[in-house]
């Protein structure tokens, strides 16, 4: 019903009633009654005009709407009248809702994002599994899928080129099959300044299999993926926007990737950023081009021993996943066992598992899954505290509004009507709080991003979406209804007579007051308990971070500049490459502020590893030696400050000599040479032509790829080729050296691609990114919880002091000292806080073991954390008690007694 029609009907009803009254009065006048008397009698006879109208309006059937509008109007008026109360409640809710919205938008974008492909349920990714693993000599999966390896079972999702081409020609279970390989770092020229870009190599059926279209131009077709095809590239929509400014003329242009001319044929549709979450590539290029781009990890078309392709297939219509799995497994077994060089044994049961792409290609999503859910639990608890805080505030206000309620009840308002109105008020508060919360979430995500707290999570393109909005609306309504309910019911349970008396505002009916008290106290105890829980969790995570940062990596990570350089695609190799590295090393050492310089195939703690398994010399051939490998330049141990324990480090002549040498770490010696002196022994002298490496020295243990891992046996060998990372030991902030290093390199050879700079400390921080994020955010939420709980405690005590003003006045008049009053108020508050903290600690002791996997070097029941949190809580709650207590001490007995 429109507002206008309603207004008209309302006016008609008024007139109908008015005419009734006038006719009744006229008749009385005609019977001889006096004007005034007639009017009054007619009124009396008519009854309660408001109620008659109300009952009539009820018949119209849209009473709820009218009530609703009225409630909102009235609610807004009430909220405007109490700006302090409104402000505190809205702010509390905004913080709670905002924190939830922010974390949920991370979850929504990182974990719940549906794949932007057609009919994703029919797309499956292939995974292999075999007891002893496959005999691959090369393997890389580019982080597309995450597979938990077990002791007895090895699995993976990378396959060789020959396997893919065999599978492609078997059109039995899949309607189409595609393979792709991960990030190729490409040097881009021919469009603006030279820059670095990333690309994925995809087979010609990629876009067709996924059902992804082009936004501009076309996608890669099977015809682009042959040995004779002209090189083409399809751009990621986001990259097209950022690097090409969304220029439609970019399509058709020629760009140079690593010096090879490519034609940009199209831009993929905007919502397709990546098949595997978090692995966003700037462009897609046909798989066949690996022969010309030569990524180090690719295997040749005939090399079945190099797994580097991820395979995704679209199921043929009518074929179930299990059927397809059986068929592909059979095919895989044949290929693996019957090939020229078998990769597995019959007994190892090699097989294929098909998983839906949504679950199978998790990308880096799995890294954030648990941390994000943990944070979601934390913010949910914060919201719970905020809700109970608001409930407490409303309850306190409800007590002061009892006279209003009593008046309304006395005037004939229905109880359900009043409950509805109170609820409308609290929902209004939560809606305003929710709107502010969205702003707060948006703002905090921006802040997190610019402070680089989000780090790699930002790759998931975190943006508020429809799902987040729905979530926030639901949460807001819940936070409105939940805390409003109890005060609404309680507020209307009033004994009218005492409530309407003159002194009602300060002493409401005895029974309801007592009830709200115990309820209010329960709320405060719950809040303190919940915030204790969050604080303890945060404390454990912070201690974990501190422990991780305190780990001795075995080398000096401070003042170390890392410089990545790749001269290999400029034609450098072998002796020429070694001489370039040697030259760079000596020239960089001359820079002011540089103590020493070395280089290695990879930097320590970079997260990447090179693992080799060997049969040891002079021992049982069945016992394999597994070791981490690192090729290093001269002065490596010296520069990294890894002490040489026995023997010697590498000398320049080791680099060109045909006699191969190696330096092992102490863990190596302990594990594999427990009862013999390893010096002079050879590693891998299995081949007559290859003499293997002679062990010439033992160095102290140092962490290899990951700070959290235990130190494993590691063998260092002289770096003879390939790309390198230079390590510069400096006396000052290593980053100040970047320009100087840059100019040294370009003086030596200006054609060298851009260098990658990083400090070792920053690299370690990046590897601890997840722990940083969780520790920082959870301590932020812990503090938020603490503040909210203290506001709750403060509110309760303030209310109580106000209510007991008279009692305190009497006590003071009877001779109570200020310290007695202080003890009374603070004691009560502290008792609640201690009770809550004890409860929280008890709960925490039971549940912290669930975050066991997040912790490092600290037990879930760490007494120091528990004690620290208890202490913090006591101190802060003392502060929260002090203000109301001071007010209580200042009560003037004369004023207080006259008050009533």
């Amino acid at each position, binding site marked *: 019903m429109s507002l206008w029609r309603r207004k008209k009907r309302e006016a*008609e*009803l008024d*007139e*109908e*009633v008015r*005419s*009734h009254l*006038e*006719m*009744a009065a*006229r*008749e009385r006048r005609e019977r001889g009654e006096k004007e005034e008397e007639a009017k009054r009698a007619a009124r009396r006879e*008519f*009854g*309660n005009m408001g*109620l*008659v*109208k109300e*009952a*009539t309006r*009820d*018949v*119209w*059937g849209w009473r709820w709407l009218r009530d609703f509008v009225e409630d909102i109007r009235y609610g807004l008026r009430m909220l405007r009248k109490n700006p302090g109360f409104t402000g505190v409640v809205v702010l509390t809710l905004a913080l709670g809702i905002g924190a939830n919205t922010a974390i949920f938008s991370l979850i929504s974008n990182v974990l719940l994002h549906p794949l932007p492909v057609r009919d994703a349920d029919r797309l499956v990714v292939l995974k292999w599994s075999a007891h002893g693993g496959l005999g691959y000599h090369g393997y890389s999966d580019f982080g597309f899928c995450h597979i938990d390896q077990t002791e007895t079972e090895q699995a993976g999702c990378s396959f060789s080129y020959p396997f893919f081409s065999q599978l492609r020609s078997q059109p039995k279970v899949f309607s189409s099959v595609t393979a792709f390989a991960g990030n190729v770092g490409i040097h881009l020229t021919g469009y603006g300044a030279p820059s670095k870009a990333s690309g994925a190599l995809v087979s010609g059926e990629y876009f067709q299999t996924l059902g992804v279209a082009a936004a501009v131009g076309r996608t890669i077709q099977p015809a682009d993926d042959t040995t004779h095809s002209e090189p083409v590239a399809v751009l990621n929509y986001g990259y097209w926007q950022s690097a090409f400014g969304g220029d439609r003329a970019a399509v058709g242009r020629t760009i140079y990737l690593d010096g090879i001319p490519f034609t940009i044929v199209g831009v993929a549709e905007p919502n397709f950023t990546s098949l595997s979450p978090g692995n966003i590539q700037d462009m897609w290029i046909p798989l066949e081009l690996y022969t010309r781009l030569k990524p180090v990890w690719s295997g040749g078309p005939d090399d079945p021993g190099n797994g580097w392709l991820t395979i995704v297939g679209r199921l043929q219509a009518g074929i179930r996943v299990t059927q397809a799995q059986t068929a592909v497994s059979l095919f895989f077994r044949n290929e693996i066992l019957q090939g020229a060089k078998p990769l597995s044994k019959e007994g190892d049961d090699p097989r294929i598992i098909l998983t839906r792409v949504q679950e199978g290609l998790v990308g880096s999503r799995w890294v954030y899954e648990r941390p994000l859910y943990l944070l979601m639990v934390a913010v949910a608890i914060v919201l719970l505290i905020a809700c109970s805080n608001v409930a407490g505030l409303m309850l306190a206000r409800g007590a002061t509004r009892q006279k209003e309620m009593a008046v309304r*009840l*006395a*005037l*004939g*308002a*229905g*109880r359900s009507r009043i409950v509805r109105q109170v609820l409308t008020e609290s929902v209004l508060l939560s809606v305003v709080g929710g709107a502010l919360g969205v702003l707060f979430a948006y703002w905090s995500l921006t802040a997190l991003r610019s402070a680089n707290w989000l780090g790699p999570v930002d790759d998931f393109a975190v943006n508020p979406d429809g799902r987040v909005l729905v979530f926030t609306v639901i949460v807001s309504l819940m936070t409105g209804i939940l805390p409003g309910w109890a005060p609404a019911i309680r507020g209307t349970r009033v004994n009218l007579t005492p409530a309407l008396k003159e002194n009602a505002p300060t002493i409401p009916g005895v029974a309801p007051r007592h009830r709200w008290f115990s309820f209010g106290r329960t709320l405060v105890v719950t809040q303190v308990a919940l915030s204790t829980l969050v604080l303890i969790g945060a404390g454990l995570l912070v201690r974990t971070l501190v422990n991780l940062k305190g780990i001795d990596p075995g080398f000096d990570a401070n003042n170390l500049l890392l410089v990545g350089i790749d001269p290999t695609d400029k034609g450098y190799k072998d002796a020429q490459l070694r001489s370039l590295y040697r030259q760079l090393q000596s020239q960089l050492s001359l820079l002011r502020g540089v103590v020493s310089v070395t280089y290695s195939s990879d930097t320590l703690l970079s997260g990447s590893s090179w693992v080799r398994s060997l049969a040891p010399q002079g021992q049982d051939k069945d016992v394999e030696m597994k070791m981490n490998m690192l090729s290093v330049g001269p002065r490596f141990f010296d520069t990294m400050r890894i002490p040489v324990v026995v023997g010697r480090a590498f000398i320049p002549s080791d680099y060109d000599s045909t006699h191969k040498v190696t330096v092992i770490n102490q863990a190596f010696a302990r594990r594999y040479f427990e009862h013999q002196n390893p010096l002079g022994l050879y590693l891998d002298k299995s081949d007559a032509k290859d003499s293997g490496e002679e062990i010439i020295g033992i160095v102290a243990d140092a962490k290899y790829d990951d700070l959290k891992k235990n130190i494993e046996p590691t063998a260092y060998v002289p770096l003879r080729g390939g790309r390198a990372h230079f390590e510069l030991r400096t006396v000052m902030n290593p980053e100040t050296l970047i320009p100087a290093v840059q100019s040294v390199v370009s003086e030596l050879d200006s054609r060298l691609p851009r260098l990658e700079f990083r400090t070792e400390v920053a690299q370690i921080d990046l590897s601890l990114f997840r722990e940083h994020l969780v520790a920082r955010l959870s301590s932020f939420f812990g503090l938020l919880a603490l503040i909210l709980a203290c506001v709750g405690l403060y509110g309760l005590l303030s209310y109580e002091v106000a209510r007991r003003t008279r009692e305190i006045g009497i006590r003071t008049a009877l001779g109570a000292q200020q310290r007695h009053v202080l003890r009374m108020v603070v004691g009560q508050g502290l008792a609640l806080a201690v009770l809550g903290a004890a409860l929280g600690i008890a709960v925490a002791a039971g549940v912290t073991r669930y975050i066991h996997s997040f912790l490092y070097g600290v037990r879930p029941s760490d007494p120091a954390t528990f004690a620290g949190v208890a202490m913090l809580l006591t101190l802060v709650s003392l502060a929260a008690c002090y203000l109301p207590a001071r007010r209580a001490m200042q009560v003037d007995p004369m004023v207080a007694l006259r008050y009533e």
Partner: protein
Amino acid sequence: MGEKRERYQNRIELLQGTLDLLILQTLQWGPQHGYGISVAIRNRSGELLQVDTGSLYPALHRLEKQKWIKAEWRISDNKQRAKFYQLTAAGKKQLTRERSKWSQLSDAIAGVLQPEE
């Protein structure tokens, strides 16, 4: 819930069926406004039935909603603008139904009340 309010509702319930019948019957004699209806019922019942305005107006609006009566603003005999209600065709049929229901009911009650012979 206020007591006053409950009293009203009780009375509406009590009179629900019969009040509708009385209103429809009154309107059969010609269009009439709310006040006129209440006066007519009072007079014809020998001052016995006092129609409460809190029941009368909701009933009128309900009957109007059910399209048994329709309303129109007119000027009354003594130059007073008033809302006149008037029976519709559907209302006439309803009146017949209500009347037979009422006579059945009163026969039934009379039968029960009649002393046994």
